């Protein structure tokens, strides 16, 4: 064993507040292993395996197209409803499965939390990382559908995919870490979460275009943390309108949740082992 000066640090009752991003970076390999484990475990002992990730969005797209395609297609003008729905669903899926898994992650990993130290934020982040893995596969499906339907693309809008994905990540992490922290103390959130996610879906422009809703409802849309990413992501459609004020409001709400969620998570994480 090589002799080197060992790292020195202190364990104290309470240290000042930090987001702990530096420590998170030090533990990036563990983060990778957490994501890797969850992906590996998820489709063990299934016949179709990873194919499920491809099938789910396609089947859902089919159902929605058959049932609602005619109704909402009119409001979309030149945009194909299948493309509209699939693009919304892909991002929404990151948020909903990210939030759901992150929210339950501290409780489902309680056995590890009680025995080993590592930056706790790794757990919700890895849950979201997992949702991004599904997205990557879904994206190929999406591009294939774009090509098959010969959809015209607005190339400058494609660049907005990057901020869209960043905002999806922050939306999932902010709400996910908030729920994860609260869930450790009050298990009620485990039961409230699926309901909350469903309700959130109906007030986001996932399956139907904003134009069909009333004036009052569209104000509500703007306060949804997922409004901005979904609308930004859709900018690669030709002639897709953008409501800049609404996007700014949504992005603001989004980042507020991020800082607030991580703040509460970091404040309570010391006691997870005692409560979980």
């Amino acid at each position, binding site marked *: *064993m090589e002799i080197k000066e*060992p*790292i*020195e*640090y*202190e*364990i*104290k*009752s*309470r240290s000042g507040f930090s987001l702990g991003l530096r420590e998170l970076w030090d533990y990036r*390999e*563990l983060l990778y*292993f957490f994501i*890797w*484990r969850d992906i*590996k*475990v998820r489709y*063990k*002992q299934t016949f179709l395996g990873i194919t499920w990730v491809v099938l789910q969005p396609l089947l859902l797209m089919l159902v929605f197209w058959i049932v609602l395609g005619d109704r909402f297609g009119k409001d979309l003008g030149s945009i194909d409803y299948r493309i509209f729905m699939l693009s919304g669903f892909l991002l929404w899926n990151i948020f909903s499965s990210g939030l759901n898994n992150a929210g339950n992650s501290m409780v489902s990993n309680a*056995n*590890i*939390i*009680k*025995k*080993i*130290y*590592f930056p706790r934020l790794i757990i919700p982040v890895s849950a979201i990382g997992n949702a991004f893995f599904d997205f990557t596969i879904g994206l190929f499906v999406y591009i294939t559908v774009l090509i098959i339907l010969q959809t015209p693309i607005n190339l400058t809008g494609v660049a907005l995919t990057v901020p869209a994905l960043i905002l999806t990540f922050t939306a999932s992490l902010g709400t996910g870490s908030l729920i994860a922290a609260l869930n450790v103390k009050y298990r009620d959130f485990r039961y409230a979460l699926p309901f909350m996610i469903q309700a959130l879906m109906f007030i986001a422009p996932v399956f139907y275009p904003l134009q069909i809703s009333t004036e009052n409802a569209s104000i509500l849309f703007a306060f949804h943390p997922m409004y901005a990413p979904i609308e930004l992501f859709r900018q690669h459609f030709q002639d897709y309108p953008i409501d800049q004020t609404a996007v700014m409001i949504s992005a603001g709400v989004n980042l507020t949740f991020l800082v607030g969620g991580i703040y509460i998570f970091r404040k309570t994480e*010391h*006691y997870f*082992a*005692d409560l979980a």
Partner: protein
Amino acid sequence: MKPALEIQNISKLYRIRHELKPYLSIRDSISGLFRRNSSVTEDFYALKDVSFDVMPGDTLGIIGKNGAGKSTLLKIISRITPPSSGKIKCRGRIASLLEVGTGFHPELSGRENIYFNGSILGMKKKEIDKNFDAIVDFAGVEKFIDTPLKHYSSGMQLRLAFAVAAFLENEILIIDEVLAVGDAEFQKKCLGKMDEVSKSGRTVLFVSHNISAIKQLCRSAVILNQGEIVGKGNTDECLNQYLISSEERIKNSNGESNLNGKFLKRIQLSSEGNIQNTVTPGESISIELELNTKEIVGEIILGLIIRDEYGQALIGVNNLHYGTNFISAHTNSEKFQMHLKKFPLNKGHFSIDVHIGSGKKDIEVIRDAVYFSVSPGLIKGSSERLNDQLNKLFVDEIEFRKL
């Protein structure tokens, strides 16, 4: 040389909340949302002002009875839970093994589990790659390395888990009771490996009930009792002191103790009809309990647990095991007795816990209600001595016959 760990005035406080009412109605819990003072809190110190240093390369044993605060101390040092006050200065990476196989997943293969478990314990991927073959070899699971863990026998899982931990390269290792499981041969292998680890210059903190393992591995030791350090220094001295302290308690009592429990008022030990706290194996003993049963409704269950000097439970019995039922008489004082015709334990120091139950629930538990010792000596009614090393327990109902 600077210490690897400087533990300075560590305390850990838990706040226990007692509800004033024995039941909680929905109305109460709803009104409780607005009125937070409907319960009384009691402060409980799991650790009180604990300080000691551990030098690099030292192997330190932490000794204490159940509930002495050993696990809490290890959890604080491994940063799982923060101390309420005090601080610890650490020099070196800490790896804590509070359990073997943390994070093992039954659906993953042996190979995948080695990587995930190693990573959780703080190994870098490069280190795991480097030691992979050695880990598999140490665990002896080459054939099954790509089989899901759920098809492993529990022994194989355990071996794999220990093997991963054995190759940690952290400067400070914290090990809790991991040797309490596994077959004898594997335990030996583990002890050997740990001995090797401690000789390689790394710092090891070791908690175990296995006194012989502590004696074998640790140069120095710390004794905890009710959250406080009651002794530290050389292992042998500490262990002796530990035994002496349980001897002291016996000297200071006479087989009788008045307790101010809510229900249990007095416990008295007698042997061959005399109140005393020394027993010879094979003698009759009686344990008499005086209870205030005014507030006990219906059935009373009396349970007794006999523990050895290390706090290990040896015998646990209650009256139901022997077909006796007690009904509360609702008086200030009721007496109950447990009588053993021939006491089965050999030489040592013991204590008795009393559990008082009613309706399938413990309503009062008193740890170490009375201390006593068993003197080495002749079995009553025989002229032969029992071998102290061999016999912890003397079984009465054995017949030898010539056929």
